[in-house]
């Protein structure tokens, strides 16, 4: 049994489990599923700086911080107790492309060849980690939600703005992955 759990889980197992988070949150506390707001609550609690957008009672949303801390703990559990002993299997076409940028280590979920502490101070590393992270934080809040809030919760509730947001996520992602990222990775 444990052997099966340690294998990578197929989409038809993982997807429905992620989808069940929607009713789980509604039923255990009347909460709508969303993750990126946690970043805002961290801003509001640590450095509101008198900005109106951060002047609210963040303690009312502390459930969201418990949730993301749980995700962090879940990462620890999955990695230490349920880890897949084999490297991540990827499409051979992608493997060939990535090898040309020097990415050959598939033992971790993040590409250790380019995302590590040493490379942080190179231009490529800075763009991948610092600039990329900034876009994620800025963009999700500007859009009013991320993949969980808009794509999963919003679409589940048939919200047109969420469909527009989700399409925008995909457009941005396709442009970056196919047109811009190859340039960054070649740096």
């Amino acid at each position, binding site marked *: 049994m444990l052997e099966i759990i340690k294998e990578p889980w197929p989409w038809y197992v993982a997807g429905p489990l992620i989808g069940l988070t929607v009713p789980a949150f509604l039923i255990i506390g009347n909460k709508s599923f969303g993750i990126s707001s946690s970043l805002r609550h961290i801003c509001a609690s640590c450095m509101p700086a008198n900005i109106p957008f951060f002047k609210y009672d963040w303690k009312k949303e502390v459930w969201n911080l418990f949730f993301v801390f749980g995700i962090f703990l879940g*990462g620890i559990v999955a990695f230490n107790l349920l880890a897949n002993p084999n490297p991540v299997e990827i499409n051979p076409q992608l493997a060939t492309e990535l090898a040309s940028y020097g990415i050959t280590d598939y033992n971790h*979920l993040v590409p250790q060849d380019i995302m590590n502490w040493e490379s942080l101070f190179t231009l490529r590393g800075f763009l991948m980690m610092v600039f990329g992270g900034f876009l994620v934080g800025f963009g999700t809040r500007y859009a009013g939600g991320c993949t969980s809030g808009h794509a999963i919760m919003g679409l589940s509730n048939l919200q047109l703005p969420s469909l527009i947001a989700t399409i925008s996520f995909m457009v941005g992602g396709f442009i970056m992955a196919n047109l811009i990222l190859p340039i960054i990775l070649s740096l």
Partner: protein
Amino acid sequence: MEQNTVIDKDLEIRLQDAMCVNESHLEHKWYHNFKYLVVGVLFGIVFVKSEVVSWFRIQEMFRLQSFHMFGIIGSAVLVGMVSIWLIKKFEVKTIYGETIEIHDKKFNKGQIYGGSIFGLGWAITGACPGPLFAQIGTGATIIIVTLLSAIAGTWVYGYLREKLPH
């Protein structure tokens, strides 16, 4: 009366650019929040085991080289949709007996501008906000930098919010 105005104002601010604000009318002790932590742990395990938090899977998705991520998002939405339909149809209550409320979203241009900006970042980092937390849990300590940067991005958005087109 004045108390109510303060509370309404607070909710109004929290509702700005947020999907997951939902005002429960009940007050609970702080330790009730542990139930969200438990959901988070399970969720984090699913994230890692399905490799949703893998940079490589995100690259495959945006190059249309694998069905995996589309299958996950698609089936998650389907399950979520059926669940919400059932909750509304049978007027399911919360475990505290409260009526379930879900706010509708209004369209603003931020969903296009911000959404595209997030998409650009998603394809670089290979992670949306949730996976960042899980990746750090798997021992990729460098992702702490990405997370701090995402927090900084959120802060800068809050700082510039009035000047940005919505």
